[in-house]
């Protein structure tokens, strides 16, 4: 009786594990290294787009300086990714994930452009916090696991601290703006 209960427990655990793996496979689309490179480049380009809007529309020096840092840092990451792709002979390939990122960015850009003054600053900085959170999560749970090439994986791991610092910086601004 005891053995049959143990067997039943093992079967249940195995089925649960299979279910989790299946769900994960469905949630995370399978990406090639060329597609991972495309997602990485697009994610950086999108934040540069937001920063350029902030430089146009914000009246706050602090927000403008933050936006300039985003432009400088994300441009440096794109250059690094482009140099690595060239070295590896990989051409970034458009895919469903990068398309989905761009679609979301178009919507956010429209929303940001409809605002001005303090309302714009709040919307931009709030979006920076959330966007960096989402990108960090995507790098950790999708891009790094999907990458086969060790150098590309290493680049993704190396940019994570920068993105986390950006999120922290945006949160500092968020606190200042709410005072």
């Amino acid at each position, binding site marked *: 009786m005891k053995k049959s209960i143990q067997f039943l427990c093992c079967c249940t655990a195995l089925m649960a594990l299979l279910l989790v793996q299946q769900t994960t496979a469905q949630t995370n689309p399978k990406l090639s290294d060329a597609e991972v490179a495309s997602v990485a480049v697009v994610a950086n380009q999108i934040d540069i787009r937001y920063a350029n809007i902030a430089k146009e529309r914000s009246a706050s020096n602090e927000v403008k300086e933050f936006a300039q840092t985003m432009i400088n840092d994300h441009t440096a990451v794109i250059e690094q990714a482009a140099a690595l792709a060239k070295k590896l002979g990989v051409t970034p390939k458009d895919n469903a994930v990068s398309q989905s990122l761009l679609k979301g960015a178009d919507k956010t850009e429209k929303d940001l452009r409809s605002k001005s003054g303090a309302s714009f600053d709040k919307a931009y900085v709030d979006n920076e916090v959330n966007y960096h959170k989402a990108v960090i999560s995507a790098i950790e749970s999708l891009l790094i696991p999907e990458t086969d090439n060790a150098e590309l994986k290493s680049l993704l791991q190396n940019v994570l*601290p920068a993105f986390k610092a950006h999120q922290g910086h945006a949160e500092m601004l968020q606190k200042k703006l709410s005072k």
Partner: protein
Amino acid sequence: MKDQWVKWKLVFGLLIWIGFLNGCSSPSDPLQEDGKAINDQKPATHTVEIKQMKFIPGTLTVNKEDTVIFINRDILTHDVTEELSRSWSSSPLKANETWVLTATESVNYFCSIHPVMKGNIVVK
């Protein structure tokens, strides 16, 4: 006999003069200070690496007048700025650029480009 007496007076005067000079030497006499040879007091050189958005080591303990070399190992540009009132700052340091600081007092510093990056120097 008279010549010898003059010679003795000269030697005696010279000895007094040397003694006087020794007595007037400052506490920072290069021969010794606090019982330690001056060679033990030469300023040391320390390195702080800027890597993965961190100052490594985050806390550095040094002697006064020691040299601290900051080297940027990140792909992003950083700087080193006094945190309380931004009383001093390095210029922006690109990848692999260095900046040298002479430690004169304990200080908290940060990267003004990425304000979440912080470090401090403790002068003993």
